[in-house]
């Protein structure tokens, strides 16, 4: 099908001047002078001195965070508050024959014990499909499913009371194999299939001269944010509730909470509390409804803080994947056809499985020109822990698959693996396997060249044992290690896809020369707060920018802090709000001066005419009530995939590449990564230090998935719910990350040309680590994380 050009619609702007004070004059004359066209163009970055867009500005919350004064959601309290605790299922699958809460209720200090019957509104919730019980209703479908919640005057009392609840379970055999799920007896009224995708593109009968086939697996990764799920709910006098919460998306939380409480959305007021990381794990609800239920039931403020153990059960994980691939290429290495079958284990409830499998399928062939593709994707329901969003969102799993295949194909062709990728690299104007033509920038080849072409570091043998696999445990001798270099490239979409209008809202007010920006964008550590200030400074020529709290009561939805979307979407909303205010100010000043507003700019706290004849202090012009604007910002519309998986489903794309050098002790199966070099398609960099932080941090999560991170399941039971047993990279596991280049080709429709940069580093890093270990050992290693036994016994 023919792709329509992607066009960014004008943002919906509703301006609401609070009161417009008369502009103050500082100079006479009325000549409009030079046109102000440069100021109003959307392309390029407007100069705002040293603290605007593009500058290396520090985080506004940096100082309180290093002082320990920043209030995270677990740091809150209120007078006379209670502690909540959740009783969870120890079984992956069971019927509940009865629950006796008597002993728990009789415990001194206990104020409430609530069950499914106490949920006043809708009994189920869910981000896309409300299929997950607030509290188990006659049945549990995964280990850790909430069954009851308790409020008590001390956290230990609440925990002991929960332990005193007697649940009569009739344990049943869990369904744990996603491939068996479609034909197994349904474990949920909605059935066992979340979604099947069938991408048929091009000539499906085409075959290549060279064919390689492989089967690959990815384990279940946990987001492992540092700040555990926590919040504080306060009942109000009118049956409503106020919730201070760490989340990725305030407004969608509110929608689900209100439905389950059976009250109006306006009666549920959410304020973002400090968020200790997210990475997808806070996109679904965890304790939000439980907290509000307990607060409304007891009439007291209630606080909950998950332990680390509970956190592993309290949020969704990255989908484990099983993938079969067959690549066809001609004798020169050009891809002819890609066939793939991808099975994702969605666990017990829907979460975002249907979107994750769409991403996994759409990007299954990698950032390559593929004339024909047949890609079948299945996300299935099982009695394993629910899976949903995690950084990379489906593209991580298939990147491991397609990059493993590209290396295999290069070997079959006798070609350099980087060269094979280069000759197949997608570019702007090319077509994806979904038929969509890429209309924005997509410099895949340049990213590959920059990363692969960076000088390889000379890493001499080290006599520091900390540099060896196994580290200072003196397990490995340098003489016993082998070295390998691996390369991978991956990509994904930015923003939500398939017709979803994930708009963002922002308000800007300028009074007394100071800008105040209001946006419900969840700051989860990514640094949006810094960007919001930079954008306001650039657009308004001010230095002081106040960020109002992120709340549901004061502003519309900002959408989710996920999908690499907030720089574009909430950045775009803030930019549009600031520009709307700027236009009001300039219009008033222009009218007062009798000039065209095109000849005026805001700069350095002044309104100045471009001809240099007139200027006025912005503080004077905006004295008192000032100027205000509220906007909604929308990205270009997308469309659903058709029955053949074809359609213009995505807004924009970004890619990254990694080159990894690893030392391996093949006998012990231990790996030490010695160097990581990366290049990334970023559009434009808006804050260099924050960009480095995203790239280094995202890369580390990919390293973790490649070598150590997996939630270990045994017939549905989680075996390693702790940081003792679920290990994430430490300072000794992560080498320095060299950023060979961020490839800056401004995205035409993105504010300032900037693409979201959070996810690409996590997509290709795992595959590159696996490739390096393969290169060192010669082993096929079809599964990540690579465990020591996979190498030593491989």
């Amino acid at each position, binding site marked *: 099908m023919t792709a329509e050009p992607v066009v960014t619609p004008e943002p919906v702007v509703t301006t609401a001047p609070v009161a417009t004070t008369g502009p103050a004059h500082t100079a006479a004359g009325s000549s409009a002078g030079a046109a102000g066209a440069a100021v109003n163009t959307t392309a390029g970055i407007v100069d705002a001195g040293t603290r605007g867009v593009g500058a290396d500005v520090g*985080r506004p919350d940096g100082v309180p965070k290093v002082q320990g004064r920043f209030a995270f959601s677990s740091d809150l309290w209120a007078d006379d508050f209670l502690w909540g605790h959740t009783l969870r299922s120890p079984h992956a699958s069971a019927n509940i024959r009865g629950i006796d809460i008597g002993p728990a209720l009789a415990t001194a200090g206990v104020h409430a014990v609530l069950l499914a019957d106490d949920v006043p509104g809708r009994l189920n919730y869910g981000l896309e499909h409300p299929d997950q019980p607030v509290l188990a209703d006659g049945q549990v479908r995964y280990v850790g499913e909430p069954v009851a919640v308790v409020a008590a005057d001390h956290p230990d009392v609440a925990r002991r009371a929960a332990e005193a609840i007697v649940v009569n379970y009739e344990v049943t055999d869990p369904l744990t194999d996603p491939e068996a799920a479609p034909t197994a007896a349904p474990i949920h009224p909605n059935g066992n299939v979340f979604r099947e995708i069938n991408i048929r593109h091009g000539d499906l009968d085409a075959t290549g001269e060279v064919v390689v086939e492989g089967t690959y697996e990815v384990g279940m990764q946990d987001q492992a944010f540092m700040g555990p799920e926590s919040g504080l709910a306060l009942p109000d006098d009118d049956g409503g509730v106020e919730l201070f919460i760490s989340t990725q998306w305030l407004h969608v939380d509110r929608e689900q909470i209100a439905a389950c409480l059976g009250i109006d959305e306006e009666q549920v007021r959410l304020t973002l509390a400090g968020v200790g990381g997210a990475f997808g794990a806070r996109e679904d609800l965890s304790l939000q409804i439980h907290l509000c239920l307990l607060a409304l039931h007891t009439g007291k403020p209630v606080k909950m803080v998950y332990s680390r153990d509970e956190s592993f059960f309290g949020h969704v994980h990255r989908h484990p994947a099983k993938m079969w691939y067959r690549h066809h290429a001609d004798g020169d290495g050009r891809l002819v056809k890609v066939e793939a079958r991808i099975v994702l284990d969605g666990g017990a409830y829907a979460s975002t499985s249907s979107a994750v499998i769409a991403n996994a399928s759409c990007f299954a062939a990698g950032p390559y020109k593929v004339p024909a593709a047949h890609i079948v994707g299945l996300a299935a329901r099982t009695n394993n822990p629910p899976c949903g969003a995690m950084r990379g969102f489906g593209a991580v799993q298939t990147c491991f698959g397609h990059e493993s295949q590209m290396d295999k194909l290069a070997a079959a062709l006798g070609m350099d693996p980087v060269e094979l990728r280069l000759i197949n690299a997608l570019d702007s104007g090319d077509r994806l396997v979904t038929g969509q033509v890429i209309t924005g920038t997509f410099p895949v080849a340049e990213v590959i060249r920059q990363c692969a072409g960076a000088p390889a570091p000379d890493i001499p043998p080290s006599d520091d044992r900390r540099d060896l696999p196994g580290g200072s445990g003196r397990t490995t001798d340098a003489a016993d290690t082998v070295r390998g270099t691996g390369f991978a490239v991956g990509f994904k979409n930015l923003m939500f896809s398939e017709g979803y209008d994930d708009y963002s809202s922002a308000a800007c007010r300028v009074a007394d020369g100071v800008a105040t920006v209001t946006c419900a964008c969840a700051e989860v550590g990514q640094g949006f707060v810094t960007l919001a200030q930079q954008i306001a400074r650039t657009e308004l020529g001010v230095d002081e920018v106040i960020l109002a709290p992120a709340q549901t009561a004061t502003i519309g939805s900002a959408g989710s802090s996920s999908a690499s979307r907030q720089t574009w979407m909430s950045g775009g909303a803030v930019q549009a709000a600031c520009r709307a205010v700027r236009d009001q100010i300039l219009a008033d000043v222009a009218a007062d001066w009798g000039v065209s507003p095109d000849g005026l700019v805001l700069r350095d706290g002044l309104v100045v005419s471009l001809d240099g004849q007139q200027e006025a202090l912005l503080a004077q012009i905006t004295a008192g009530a000032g100027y205000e604007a509220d906007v909604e910002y929308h990205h270009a519309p997308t469309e659903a995939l058709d029955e053949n998986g074809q359609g213009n489903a995505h807004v924009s794309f970004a890619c990254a590449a990694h080159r990894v050098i690893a030392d391996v002790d093949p006998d012990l199966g231990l790996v030490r990564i010695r160097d990581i070099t990366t290049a990334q398609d970023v559009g434009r960099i808006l804050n260099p230090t924050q960009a480095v*932080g995203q790239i280094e941090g995202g*890369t580390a999560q990919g390293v973790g998935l490649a070598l150590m991170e997996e939630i270990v399941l045994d017939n549905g039971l989680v075996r390693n719910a702790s940081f003792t047993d679920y290990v994430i990279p430490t300072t000794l596991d992560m080498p320095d990350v060299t950023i060979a280049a961020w490839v800056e080709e401004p995205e035409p429709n993105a504010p300032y040309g900037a693409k979201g940069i959070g996810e690409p580093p996590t997509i290709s890093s795992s595959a590159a680590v696996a490739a390096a270990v393969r290169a060192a050992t010669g082993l096929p290693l079809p599964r990540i994380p690579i465990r020591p036994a996979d190498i030593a016994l491989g």
Partner: protein
Amino acid sequence: MPDPYSLRVNGVECEVTDTDLAESLLFVLRERLGLTGTKNACTEGECSSCAVLIDGVLTCSCLVLAATAAGQEITTVEGLGDGRDELSVVQEAFVEEGAVQCGFCTPGLIVAVHDLLEANPEPSDGDVREALSGNLCRCTGYGRILAAVHSAAATKRSQP
């Protein structure tokens, strides 16, 4: 309820009342004394977000019963700066180098880096990595944190 006891935190004698003797130092600091700078990422001694100094010894406060720390000098992140507005060299370096993202691991790291640079003013990269290998961070990949430590060490060495 057991008898009240007192803890000396950041040079201030703090009475701990209405308490259960089973409460950890982390819990008492956060929930009894309102010093929430010390964080609770794992509460099982694996992540060091709760790191404090007890008589100068770097300790996971989640693993210590609060009452056993009576009579000892406890230093938390709140006690490391020089007042509300003055940052320590280490804190300043963390801000300057972009070592902070979500910030949940940050207080524990600040305490650990103070401890490291006190003991070893000129740490090698390996020394820093080893010293901080018990401090988990999920946002940064550690690159900016390591840069901040080396920057802080250099600044401290240059100071008279």
